[in-house]
């Protein structure tokens, strides 16, 4: 049953043509008719069926002939009439203000140009009549008339784009002309003439051909031939698709987009009304209805889904909720409305800056933005500006307490707007209004059309750019590496999406009416002669985004499919995505797909990502994508290190760390970097510590031509108190001298560096483990670098006497050498308590290392072929071990061995893998202390780089508790012994390779002096250990003459012996030395050094030490 028939019409005009429009705030309805009157009534009186409020109508009857057209913008109302006059009325009062123009023939169309400076400033009105010219009349000075010549026959209708940049005129000669009003001389220029879209007609036929611009300004709809509605894309002026009901061919006369741009209402000559939702369905309208008479005018309520219709019989119908809008959509409208009413009804005096906002956000100017936004509006890929689809605004909570909920909405939205306002200034507000809508698909590295060029891809491999030659395009592919030959080709398919990788270049065109979407791939590194391939998509599928993985190109399509192809064009896989894809990026096997997980919520895009491994065809992770408030995504990529990254329209760069809990870490906030400058960083690639980007100057947000140079901007996570921001690259010249001494780095900057470095190190380590590549050397180098930063921070903390902070930092140190450095710093800064605690950290670290090392050593020993060259430590240990009897450990079973084959898993993970019972048994025997968990838990990395002799002297630095009784002799004896041994060990090192001067610093003396000053307090953790181990120690002492291969004894003196092997220590030295000598030389050195040092040590007064192993070592040395 027709809904329209149920509605009660009311007669407002005489029979004949009528037209209707809403006032911008939706409070009044304006209608014109053949009776030459303009009527203004309040919306309520029309809407509420029982109330016959037509008596309050304002009637203006100044025309002498039938009124043919009507245009309303702001407070202006312009009417054109058969009496050849064009009148200007005041929208509120209905008073005639002036007659704008008198034509010589009937006026057919009038259109007010959306103001560029708010609704109350000077505007233009375009007037079309049966004459051939369009006239643009300045409302401020009506003598100022610009004539636009071009049509060969009379005109049917006119429409301005929402920004007022373009005027579309439809002529009776079937020409649809687009006029660019943004020319330098102010004269409108013909941007494109589109033939064969609209039908031809006689001027006298008075056939309507209403053109409707989408509120986003991105496209417009025009009645086409044979009952279809043609949708034409702005800027490119291509016919992108058509809407047509099956089996219907009555010509469409009227068109209007709903205020959100989601729905398009169309009326045919036979009075059939269709409402389309083009994003969902292009074949069947979501609402169809048949009116009694031919409809001659309709209009959407500016903020509701209400339609007001007038027909040939002069009747008006108000149709509430013409679209059975989903709750979601309705709430989106409510929000919009609330904001407007808030601003209008606000009792509170407006804040400074608010007035401009009001003006800007008047609903009749949905895109009234300032000149500087022009480029972004023009761009077809300027993703942050466009409305596409708003079917789903996020939430559908029941309105239990409407007031509260509304306030909540207002608050959320206002906050968003305020944020954006702070960032861009008020002028950008309307650009950001578009952020209510879900953002469109885009290609990372693509730019909008500027002049006649645009980049389709811009990455570290090269660039693809296309030159628009009106009938065709020229596509150019250039590489940064000039040894690869650039190529170019002529493109007749309008490829608008491109992806470039070292393996190939892929292009895709979006589907338009009659031209299905296609994908073209050109392999680069191929031996085959004809390796290019093209594939056509179906009629209803269009490519949204492309990426090239190691396995071949991947296309995301409008059907929410991911289509995988091989390099040679085989279709290998299809995958369905849960939401519309926004963008994709790939690197190696990894593919990141970013899609809409839902509608827009409080102005925030609701994006999610899927990280996909193309090799194994598995999803690595699916989760949400964080964005700044109200921002849209503008770039996504995967760095060469395998870290996905995104960049949003607020200028925040985030990295996804797959090995740190898939955390999104903001690694650069370009807002702080930019400061007040107009620079914009257009990302190209994220490296480990820098962002490769193009610096766009002067408010531009996209790189232009010729290809700009890449700039590297250092990454900087938004830590607090970072001090003055970096001088932006390019502004460095302002410094008076190039050699300006660097200002002291604030500790926060160091902390930030540390943060990023450790994240990166974690990632690299995990990546190396996953790939099974041994990059231990590189990783150790990274660790050393990180430790340098930490030591710097320790220094800063010590200077400020922030001892707890220094200790925390010390706990995070990775190398023993660095801990020593920290201890030195503590000593030099006269912080003995701190030094003592640091020593405990070190002692603990050594012990952990020893345990871990012993466990892995057992395993390695058991695989007797442990003298793999890389396992130099194993070889070195073998040489050090007393007798072969001690080698095999029956407890390490074969399966455990297998699990430990992976070399990179040599670290603490070994401990976890090994049967816990075995481990426990061992630890019990060693010392109960070791079982207690570490205070802070840094992975015991030290075992990886054992420096066997360096650890021994370090033990002297450990402040031992001074236990009473028999055990008390042990530490003192040990320290004397150690001190001696340290000296000798040092000597050995010096013999082998004179270390740099700083290393000669005798730590033992420092500590000796320190110990003299500081009364030593046994710390708790040592104490409890002592209680339990004292007995064992005694046993160890009594058994000192036992054979070293005795099992119990071996276990007992293990900590002291193992520590030197494992703990070690001197990573920088290790690095340097291994660089110098090469690994072999260094191993040699390591093999000989401990024995020599032990021998010397034993030659001293070490004989009383209850360590049978040393004695043995001495023996073997002899």
């Amino acid at each position, binding site marked *: 049953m027709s809904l329209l028939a149920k509605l009660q019409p009311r007669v407002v005009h005489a029979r004949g043509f009528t037209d209707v429009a809403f006032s911008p705030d939706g409070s009044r309805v304006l209608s014109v008719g053949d009776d030459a009157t303009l009527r203004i009534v309040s919306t309520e009186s029309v809407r509420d069926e029982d109330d016959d409020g037509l008596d309050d109508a304002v009637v203006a009857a100044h025309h002498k002939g039938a009124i043919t057209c009507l245009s309303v913008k702001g407070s202006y109302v312009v009417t054109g009439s058969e009496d050849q006059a064009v009148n200007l009325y005041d929208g509120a009062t209905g008073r005639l203000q002036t007659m704008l123009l008198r034509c010589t023939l009937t006026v057919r169309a009038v259109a007010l140009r959306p103001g560029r400076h708010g609704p109350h400033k000077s505007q233009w009105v375009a007037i079309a009549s049966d004459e051939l010219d369009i006239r643009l009349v300045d409302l401020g000075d009506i003598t100022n008339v610009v004539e636009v010549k071009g049509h060969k026959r009379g005109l049917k209708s006119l429409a301005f784009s929402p920004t007022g940049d373009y005027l579309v005129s439809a002529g009776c000669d079937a020409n649809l002309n687009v006029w660019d009003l943004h020319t330098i001389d102010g004269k409108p220029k013909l941007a494109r003439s589109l033939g064969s879209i609209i039908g031809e007609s006689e001027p006298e036929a008075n056939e309507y051909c209403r053109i409707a611009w989408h509120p986003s300004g991105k496209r417009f709809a025009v009645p086409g031939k044979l009952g279809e509605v043609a949708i034409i894309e702005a800027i490119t002026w291509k016919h992108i698709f058509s809407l047509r009901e099956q089996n219907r061919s009555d010509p469409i006369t009227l068109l209007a987009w709903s205020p959100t741009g989601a729905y398009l209402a169309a009326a045919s000559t036979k009075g059939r009304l269709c409402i389309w939702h083009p994003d969902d369905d292009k074949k069947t309208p979501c609402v169809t209805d048949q009116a009694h008479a031919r409809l001659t005018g309709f209009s959407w309520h500016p903020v509701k889904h209400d339609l007001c219709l007038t027909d040939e019989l002069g009747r008006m119908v108000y149709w509430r909720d013409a679209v059975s809008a989903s709750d979601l959509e309705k709430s989106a409208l409510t929000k919009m409305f609330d904001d407007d009413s808030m601003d209008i009804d606000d009792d509170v005096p407006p804040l400074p800056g608010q007035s401009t906002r009001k003006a800007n956000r008047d609903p009749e100017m949905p895109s009234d933005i300032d000149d500087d936004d022009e480029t972004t509006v023009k761009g077809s890929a300027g993703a942050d500006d466009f409305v596409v689809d708003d079917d789903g605004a996020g939430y559908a909570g029941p309105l239990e307490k409407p007031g509260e909920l509304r306030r909540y909405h207002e608050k959320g939205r206002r906050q968003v707007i305020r944020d954006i306002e702070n960032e861009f200034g008020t002028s950008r507000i309307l650009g950001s209004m578009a952020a209510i809508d879900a953002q469109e698909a885009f290609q990372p590295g693509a730019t909008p059309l500027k002049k006649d060029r645009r980049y389709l891809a811009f990455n*570290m491999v090269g660039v693809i750019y296309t030159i628009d030659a009106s009938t065709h395009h020229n596509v150019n592919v250039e590489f*940064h*590496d*000039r*040894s690869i030959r650039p190529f170019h080709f002529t493109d007749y398919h309008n490829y608008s999406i491109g992806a470039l990788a070292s393996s190939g270049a892929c292009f895709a065109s979006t589907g338009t009416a009659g031209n299905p979407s296609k994908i073209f791939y050109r392999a680069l590194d191929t031996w085959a002669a004809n390796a290019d391939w093209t594939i056509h998509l179906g009629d209803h599928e269009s490519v949204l985004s492309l990426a090239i993985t190691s396995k071949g190109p991947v296309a995301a399509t409008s059907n929410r499919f991911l289509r995988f192809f091989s390099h040679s064009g085989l279709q290998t896989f299809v995958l369905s995505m849960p939401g519309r894809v926004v963008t994709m990026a790939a690197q190696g096997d990894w593919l990141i797909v970013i899609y809409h997980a839902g509608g827009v919520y409080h102005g925030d895009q609701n994006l999610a990502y899927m990280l996909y491994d193309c090799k194994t065809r598995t999803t690595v992770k699916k989760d949400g994508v964080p964005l700044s408030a109200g921002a849209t995504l503008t770039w996504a990529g995967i760095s060469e290190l395998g870290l996905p990254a995104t960049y949003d329209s607020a200028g925040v760069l985030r990295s996804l760390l797959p090995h740190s809990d898939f955390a999104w870490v903001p690694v650069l906030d370009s807002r702080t970097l930019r400061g007040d400058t107009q620079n914009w960083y257009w990302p190209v690639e994220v*490296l480990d510590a820098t962002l*490769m980007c193009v610096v766009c100057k002067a408010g531009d947000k996209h790189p232009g031509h010729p290809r700009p*140079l*890449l700039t*590297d901007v250092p990454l900087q996570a938004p830590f607090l108190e970072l001090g003055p921001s970096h001088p932006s690259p390019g502004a*460095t*010249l302002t410094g*008076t*001298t*190039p*050699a300006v001494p660097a200002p002291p780095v604030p500790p926060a900057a160091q902390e930030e560096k540390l943060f990023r470095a450790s994240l990166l190190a974690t990632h690299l380590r995990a990546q190396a483990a996953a790939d099974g590549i041994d990059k231990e050397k590189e990783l150790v180098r990274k660790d050393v670098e990180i430790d340098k930063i930490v030591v710097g921070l320790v220094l800063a903390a010590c200077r400020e006497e922030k001892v707890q902070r220094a200790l925390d930092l010390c706990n995070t140190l990775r190398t023993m050498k660095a801990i020593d450095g920290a201890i030195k710093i503590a000593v030099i800064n006269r912080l003995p308590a701190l030094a003592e605690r640091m020593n405990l950290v070190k002692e603990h670290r050594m012990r952990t290392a020893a345990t871990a090392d012993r466990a892995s050593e057992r395993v390695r020993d058991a695989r007797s072929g442990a003298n793999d060259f890389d396992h130099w430590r194993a070889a070195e240990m073998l040489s050090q071990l007393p007798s072969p009897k001690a080698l095999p450990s029956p407890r390490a079973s074969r399966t455990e061995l297998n699990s430990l084959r992976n070399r990179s898993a040599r670290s603490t993970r070994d401990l976890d893998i090994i049967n816990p019972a075995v481990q426990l048994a061992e630890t019990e025997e060693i010392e109960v202390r070791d079982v207690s968990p570490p205070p802070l838990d840094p992975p015991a990395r030290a075992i990886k780089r054992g420096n066997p002799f360096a650890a021994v002297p370090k033990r002297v630095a450990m402040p031992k508790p001074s236990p009473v009784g028999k055990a008390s002799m042990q530490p003192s004896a040990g320290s004397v012994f150690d001190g001696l041994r340290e000296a000798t060990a040092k000597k050995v090192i010096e013999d082998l390779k004179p270390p740099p001067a700083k290393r000669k610093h005798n730590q033992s003396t420092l500590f000796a002096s320190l110990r003299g000053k500081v009364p030593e307090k046994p710390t708790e953790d040592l104490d409890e250990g002592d209680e339990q181990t004292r007995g064992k120690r005694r046993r160890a002492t009594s058994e000192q003459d036992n054979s070293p291969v005795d099992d119990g004894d071996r276990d007992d003196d293990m900590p002291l012996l193992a520590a030197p092997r494992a703990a070690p220590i001197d990573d920088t030295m290790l690095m340097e030395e291994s660089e110098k000598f090469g690994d072999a030389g260094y191993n040699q050195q390591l093999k000989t050094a401990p024995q020599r040092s032990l021998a010397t040590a034993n030659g001293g007064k070490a004989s009383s030490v209850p360590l049978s192993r040393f004695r043995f070592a001495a023996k073997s040395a002899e």
Partner: protein
Amino acid sequence: MALPKNLRHGFAPAEIEFLAENEPITVIPSQRMETLQLINGSYGPFRPPLKNLVPLWLARTLKRKHKCNIVPPEWMDVDYLKAKLEQEMSQIEFSAMPFRYMEIAHILLGCASDDIPQAETARTLLKDLREARQSKVRSGLKDLDPHYLQIDNLGVMEINEIRPFFSRAFNELRVLTPAGGAMGGDSQTTMSGAQSSMG
């Protein structure tokens, strides 16, 4: 010394230029290359469009083979040089320029003038700058005394130019000055100290 007479008083400009070729400079390689293992170190790998820091001589070699573009140092920017020239003209002191600016500029303008924006203007400005500084040096001769001499911010090439004359004149003055003794020794050390820092 078996050096020819003209080289005995110091370095020849070509020699100084040779020394300057060890200065590091940023290049953008235009071809992918693996790490170059050279006697004094390894450079690379080169992966366009990432920047690499290489010694000037290597940059020059690569540039000649069209394998890289040189990123000119920021002091070779025309605006910067203009500001410097202004400063040079208005002040008595020498404006701070990099120690080897003349040699580096000479090499770069010789081999990579297409990589330097407004290379010709930069060349002219550098020439002007050099002349301004030379005239300052000459006027500074008036103040030469046997006790003490300090000139800051002179480039190595400029020092080299004036070195034979200055040291000779210095010694002569010292001999002529009646004070002699400790004073002379003083100035001698100053000069030698300056020289060692220059070299």
